[in-house]
């Protein structure tokens, strides 16, 4: 396998983007990523697109060809990758693999989601169906917040995690999103704001949930030879990728206090990258709900099982703490355009590792120049962990 580097990244403004269609939104990410790499669309032989809601929450069934044409990529090998909310990481893995295997010297990983063309109730319906429609949605109407609420109540019962602890995660996310111009929600909030927000699926309230967001992100990857040829100043290397999955039926999980897929994917990623968890300087974790961030700390080995709340209570996952997490605001406040999230995490890792263009107050201190992105699809149905090193 060849070494692969990230050589260009782009990220659209996240939010309610009723001003653009899916192609125009993707263009906002693709163009800066190509410019960043010093390439044109004609130089890209292979594109993997992460997107979930094609034909459901937005109108195009074949988004890879539609956005491909709009961004000048027609002629390249195209595919759409689906791994639910980890689709962007699956696309990144496909692009990485195409380069690592020697099939191509450069490839593009894209993620896009256009979720605000339909009403909120219908979005709740579609996303709720994303699990095991037949056995868990058809008769029981389990929504996505409800799936994670099942984990939250189990975690609270077993470890004494409180609603205030969960609120602290949201407060942190909004604090950093307020400094990120790409973020969907840029308002600072307090613990009381979270606790007094409306209940969505108990114990999760509105401010425990990531918003329904439109957004796109784009990543150019290249081989070591290509990095030299293009004279890339600061390549960010793909150190290792790990992946795993969980059962479709939540009822088949052995417990509800962590995601097995995250544990296994991260162990595989640490092994592939040849790093230990202590060498990771900072992380992007999949905080689609506040409880998900607490479980991620534990699943990824940042702390022992049941001690995730200690990290957030002590501020250990902020700048100056043991391991800064989600310094872009995370899914919770930057927003979670499902298929784009994985590529947006890679965007953030790359910007941070290059120590460039990150707003003052958000730049993490770097010791080992190692960053980790943890991207979960569904409720631990899929998981990809990507480790980058400068």
């Amino acid at each position, binding site marked *: 396998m060849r070494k692969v580097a990230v050589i260009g990244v782009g990220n659209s403004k996240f939010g*309610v983007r009723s001003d653009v269609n899916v192609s125009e939104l993707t263009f906002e990410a693709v163009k800066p990523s190509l410019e960043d790499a010093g390439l044109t669309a004609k130089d890209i032989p292979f594109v993997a697109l992460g997107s979930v809601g094609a034909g459901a929450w937005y109108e195009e069934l074949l988004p890879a060809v539609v956005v491909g044409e709009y961004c000048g990529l027609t002629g390249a090998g195209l595919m759409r990758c689906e791994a639910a909310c980890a689709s962007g990481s699956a696309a990144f893995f496909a692009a990485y693999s195409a380069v690592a295997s020697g099939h191509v010297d450069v490839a593009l990983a894209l993620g896009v989601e256009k979720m605000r063309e339909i009403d909120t*109730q219908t979005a709740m*319906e579609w996303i709720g169906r994303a699990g095991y429609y037949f056995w868990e949605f058809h008769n029981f109407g389990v929504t996505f917040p*409800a799936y994670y609420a099942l984990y*939250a*109540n189990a975690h609270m019962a077993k470890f004494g995690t409180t609603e205030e602890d969960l609120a602290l995660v949201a407060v942190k996310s909004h604090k950093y999103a307020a400094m990120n111009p790409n973020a969907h929600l840029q308002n600072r909030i307090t613990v009381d704001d979270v606790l007094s927000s*409306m209940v969505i699926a*108990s114990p999760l309230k509105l401010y425990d949930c990531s918003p329904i967001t439109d957004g796109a992100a784009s990543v150019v990857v290249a081989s070591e030879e290509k990095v030299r040829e293009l004279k890339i100043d600061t390549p960010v290397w793909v150190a290792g990728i790990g992946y795993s999955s969980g059962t479709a039926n*939540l009822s088949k999980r052995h*417990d509800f206090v962590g995601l097995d897929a995250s544990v296994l994917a991260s162990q595989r990623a640490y092994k592939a990258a040849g790093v230990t968890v202590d060498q990771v300087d900072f992380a992007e974790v999949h905080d689609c709900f506040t409880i998900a961030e607490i479980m991620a700390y534990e699943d990824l080995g940042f702390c022992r099982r049941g001690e995730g709340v200690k990290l957030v209570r002590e501020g250990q996952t902020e700048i100056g703490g043991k391991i800064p997490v989600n310094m872009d605001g995370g899914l919770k406040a930057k927003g979670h355009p499902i298929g784009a999230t994985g590529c947006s995490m890679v965007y953030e890792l790359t910007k941070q590792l290059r120590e460039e263009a990150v707003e003052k107050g958000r730049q993490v201190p770097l010791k080992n120049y190692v960053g980790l992105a943890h991207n979960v699809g569904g409720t631990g149905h899929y998981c990809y962990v990507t480790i980058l090193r400068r």
Partner: protein
Amino acid sequence: MEMTSISMPAIRSRPITIVEEIPISKTLRFWEGLKEGKIYATKCNKCGQLYFPPSADCSDCLCSDMRWVELSNEAEIETFTHVVVRPTTFVEYKPYTVAIGKLKEGVKVLAWLTGFKLSQIKVGMKVKLVAKVSQEGNPTYEFVPP
């Protein structure tokens, strides 16, 4: 929380209604059983693995020689949530409680939990799993007080 969404010029897509016919031939005994008040699981005749939801094939040893077994109904709640914000096809329902319970036989079941006040529901609580007919007339099952 949502930022004010300024109405932007847009074209509405052509509306469609999608209804899928989901085959149940291989699990028909289960659906018929619910109408008789019984809840069935399947068990692999080769490796003995018990399946709920019932499965026509064994995902453990890939054998398709399965038998039907009736479940006991005795369950313990492992977790739950009260769903307040409902999806489109459930707006006609009042907010509902979803729970995952572990049956005496070891399999777990996700279903609605009824007959309790929300404040009474605790992880570890004993409940009973019963067959019933939904508000829409579909055979289903739910947890109720023992």
